[in-house]
């Protein structure tokens, strides 16, 4: 039966699923309706944050209105008859589809990056697949490793299209798309060029949504083990704000659980000589960026000024909006500021030769792997940050070391690069960088303490937020955006001369770093919100919530940098950009 469909979300529709009546708003998919009554319909291509493709055909159900099976991911309750999710017909079709997929998949699960975390592997287990009636047809394709951030192993690709959806619809980078048809149907860059020659910004959102081992970050754990095992090296580690509210998920803790203390303990037990906090250098970034903003406003600099903490975002501007580079703050990201300070100020202070210092970053991000290898990022005379590990890679090391994460005691960061304010902590979520900056800029400009440190207008994960702040009579108009699709909107506004903002915060990934490409797999919008809540809890619980009041930051300036935007600060903490657009 085909009826004309008029979706009205205020209208409720009742259907029967496996004989159980369920009432849901018009426009709900069968899959969502089934979940309401505790029925999980399996799928490989469906993802709650992404558009529907219905490529995998695993989520099949029977519908009394249809001769054929229906896919539960895209068919709506409005047109559905009585649904059956568990019948001989459904089980047979789902199992056959899985076997067809597995026949075109190298079943080297034991050596796979996603072993134990693979959605195809999980489905094969759930469907009790103990062999395959179909002959293997998979063919090896060379891995693509043209860049420092991510690996594309297309041999394992199941062509679910999630990565394309993330790249095209969420990030609008359009680095990858579909090509070929039938058995040649594949996901590739334009003209099958290496990723490094594509518009890819290494945000890793494709990696985050890949259900199998076709996309993953370049594994650098061995380099870190080697450094830790090397007695000559003094190995320090910094941890990004968003890692502490996500790492727990890898060990069964609640979504967004704050695991700072256990993470510090784990890092110390792994053998790092000093465990520091990127929150510290986030505070430093606020000092440099805040003063840069004040300078631009007072002295007629290029406005709006745009933040520069997110390396995926920087890649995007360089590749897609190079004409807007003067708008981007010259500040390095907190990770790179940390590296530069650790290998100069801290190394010299501790009497450690700069070449013996080894800096590791734990980041929610895979673009950071690319960022640390940029040639301009060696202010200390050496590569400022040696290795970047993602949240997932750190979890791998913790597991390999046999540490029972949940059992670990809570420990504190080391000083002096381990003291961060609440302002530094909230850098990990969209809007946090802006709020942190305002907490300091307000006081510097007005000389007064803000009435409340909670600038709630900045908070939340909406695509674009706008606010006007009153700095004692001086209105400052700001905008906050996350996800490159939304950033594009603001950039087009600037290009068209329609943006009257003073300051824009851009974070490359949806939700900011809490939704980074290096975070635990199966991240969704709901999980990002939990992590964001975790960061605001961290902020609220700290006595120190403004960057300029961080005593270790004050000491760093008095002992070493002298003042924000000083000559030395510029040498170590600021950078320059270049046009990398396709010519």
């Amino acid at each position, binding site marked *: 039966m*085909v009826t*004309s*469909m008029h979706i009205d979300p205020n209208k409720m529709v009742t259907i029967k699923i496996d004989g159980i009546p369920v009432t849901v708003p018009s426009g709900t998919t069968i899959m969502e309706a089934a979940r309401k009554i505790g029925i999980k319909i399996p799928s490989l291509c469906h993802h709650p944050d992404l558009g*529907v*493709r*219905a*490529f*995998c*055909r*695993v989520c*099949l159900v029977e519908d009394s209105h249809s001769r*054929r*099976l229906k*896919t539960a991911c*895209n*068919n*709506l309750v409005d*047109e559905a008859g009585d649904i059956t999710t568990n019948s001989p*017909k459904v089980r*047979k*079709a789902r199992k*056959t*589809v899985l076997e*067809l*997929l597995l*026949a*075109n998949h190298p079943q080297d699960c034991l050596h796979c990056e996603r072993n134990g975390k693979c959605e195809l592997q999980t489905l094969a287990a759930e469907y009790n697949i103990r062999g395959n*009636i*179909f*002959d293997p*047809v998979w063919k090896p394709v060379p891995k693509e490793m043209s860049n420092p951030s991510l690996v594309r192993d297309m041999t394992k690709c199941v*062509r679910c*299209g999630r990565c394309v959806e993330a790249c095209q619809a969420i990030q609008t980078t359009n680095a990858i798309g*579909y090509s*070929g*048809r*039938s*058995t*040649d*149907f594949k996901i590739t860059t334009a003209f099958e060029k290496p990723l490094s020659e594509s518009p890819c910004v290494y945000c890793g959102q494709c990696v985050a949504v890949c259900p199998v081992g076709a996309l993953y970050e370049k594994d650098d754990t061995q380099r870190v083990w080697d450094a830790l095992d090397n007695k000559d090296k003094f190995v320090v580690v910094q941890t990004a704000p968003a890692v502490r509210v996500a790492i727990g998920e890898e060990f069964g803790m609640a979504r967004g659980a704050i695991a700072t203390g256990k993470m510090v303990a784990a890092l110390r037990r792994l053998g790092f000589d000093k465990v520091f906090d990127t929150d510290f250098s986030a505070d430093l970034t606020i000092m440099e960026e805040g003063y840069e903003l004040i300078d631009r406003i007072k002295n007629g600099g290029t406005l709006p000024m745009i933040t520069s903490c997110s390396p995926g975002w920087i890649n995007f501007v360089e590749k897609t909006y190079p004409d807007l580079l003067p708008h981007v703050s010259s500040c390095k990201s907190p990770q790179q500021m940390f590296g530069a300070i650790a290998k100069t100020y801290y190394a010299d202070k501790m009497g450690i030769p700069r070449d013996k210092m080894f800096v590791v970053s734990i980041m929610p991000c895979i673009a950071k792997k690319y960022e640390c290898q940029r040639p301009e990022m060696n202010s200390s005379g050496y590569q400022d940050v040696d290795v970047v590990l993602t949240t997932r890679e750190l979890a791998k090391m913790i597991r390999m070391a046999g540490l029972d994460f949940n059992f670990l005691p809570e420990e504190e960061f080391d000083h002096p690069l381990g003291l961060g304010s609440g302002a530094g902590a909230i850098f990990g979520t969209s809007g946090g960088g802006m709020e942190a900056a305002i907490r300091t800029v307000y006081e510097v400009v007005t000389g007064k303490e803000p009435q409340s440190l909670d600038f709630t207008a900045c908070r939340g994960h909406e695509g674009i937020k706008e606010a006007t702040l009153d700095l004692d009579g001086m209105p400052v108009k700001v905008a906050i955006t996350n996800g490159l699709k939304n950033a594009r909107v603001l950039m087009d506004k600037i290009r068209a001369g329609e943006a009257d903002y003073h300051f824009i915060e851009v974070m490359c990934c949806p939700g900011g770093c809490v939704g980074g490409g290096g975070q635990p797999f199966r991240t969704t919008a709901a999980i990002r919100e939990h992590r964001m809540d975790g960061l605001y809890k961290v902020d609220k619980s700290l006595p120190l919530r403004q960057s300029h009041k961080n005593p270790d930051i004050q000491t760093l300036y008095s002992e070493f940098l002298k003042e924000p935007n000083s000559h030395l600060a510029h040498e170590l903490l600021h950078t320059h950009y270049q046009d990398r657009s396709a010519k």
Partner: protein
Amino acid sequence: MAKTIQLLTARCGKIRPDSVADYIAHDGFSALKKAMNMDPMQIINEVIDAKLLGRGGASYPAGKKWKQLYEIEGDPKYIVCNADEGEPGTFKDMVLLEKDPLSIIEGMAIAGYVFNSHDGYIYIRGEYREIQKLFQAAIDNAVKANYLGDNIMGSNFSFHVHIVSGAGAYICGENSGLLNSIEAKTGRPRVKPPHLAEVGLYSKPTLVNNVESFASVPQIVNMGGKAFQELGVEDSGGTKLICLSGNVKRRGTFEIPIGGVTLRDIIFDPEFGGGIPDGKELKCYHLGGQSGPIGFPEQLDTRYDHTSLKKVGLSIGSGAVVVLDDTICMIDYLKKVSEFFIHESCGKCVPCREGNRQMYMILHKFATGLATEKDFERLERLSFTMSTASSCGLGQSACTALDSCLLHRREEFEAHINGICPVCLNSRKYGDQYAY
């Protein structure tokens, strides 16, 4: 009494195809004139009464489709004619496009009037390059004569027809893939719902009908839905163009009243195929193109209408009738069918992309005498899954031919398991030229 009829083909060969004057002299544009004095709903009711089943292959009731679109709000609405005639063994749209293009234009214009649409697109397959030129000339002449374009015949109604050329992909004949192709996107079928009537071309409500369906519309308007229906049978009205090819003495396009002839007539009657040449016997016949079922001699006395054919597991589809003589090995033929679908699958959904190549591999095992009883289970599961779980009509129908053969000629598969083919005797002669 002649079993053929000249309704849609009445003007074919008798007029200069792009000449408006010739067309009018043979009753052309009278339906458009009549329609423009009718209420749109009245026209739709005539189409409903006509029991016109879509002529592209799916046989969806055209009247129902029109009514659904009519009830959907939206502006603009688009009229699209599917002339991507890619189904192997089908060449009936070509006859109409080549010999009476103005009848298609008139049908589209009537639809345009019904839905208050101002733009129609006709997607003509790339191989019909010369026909595209002719069709453009017909459009231009109709515009000059004010039967198309702005303010048709001095009224407020304006309707333009645009030609879009296909580029060789069979999948672009699938209606949603066709719309994607018009929009300059990759011609992969869309996820449905939403249905094309609601979210069609450029996301607007859209009517997509086949060439032959549109050409039937002026006839329905002129003679009335009831009279049109009475040409055919109770639940399927009008005439059908059939395309006869393969191992028959007379090949070509014939117009028949639906239900007026049997399959035996089509293949053996001297007015149609005239039998199998070279003293060979009939082995089977493939109806409706590669995506259709295969019929066997024991089904020959079935009447050629939708209901009668359905009862014996056959269907009209596009109207193709490909006749095969007894020198054809069934497995061999099915391998060719399978190859076709491997080549033409868009590849996005798993049952079709992976299923077709697995099917080919299994058929190849039969062909080379390597198949076992277990392969019947494989074929059965594949066929079930592909037909019931594929995203679009291509994957859903890729196993139709196989299913008929498994049902009616299982013994031929079994013979191959034993290494003997009743036709080619030594089936091991094949090399593995198409290992997918």
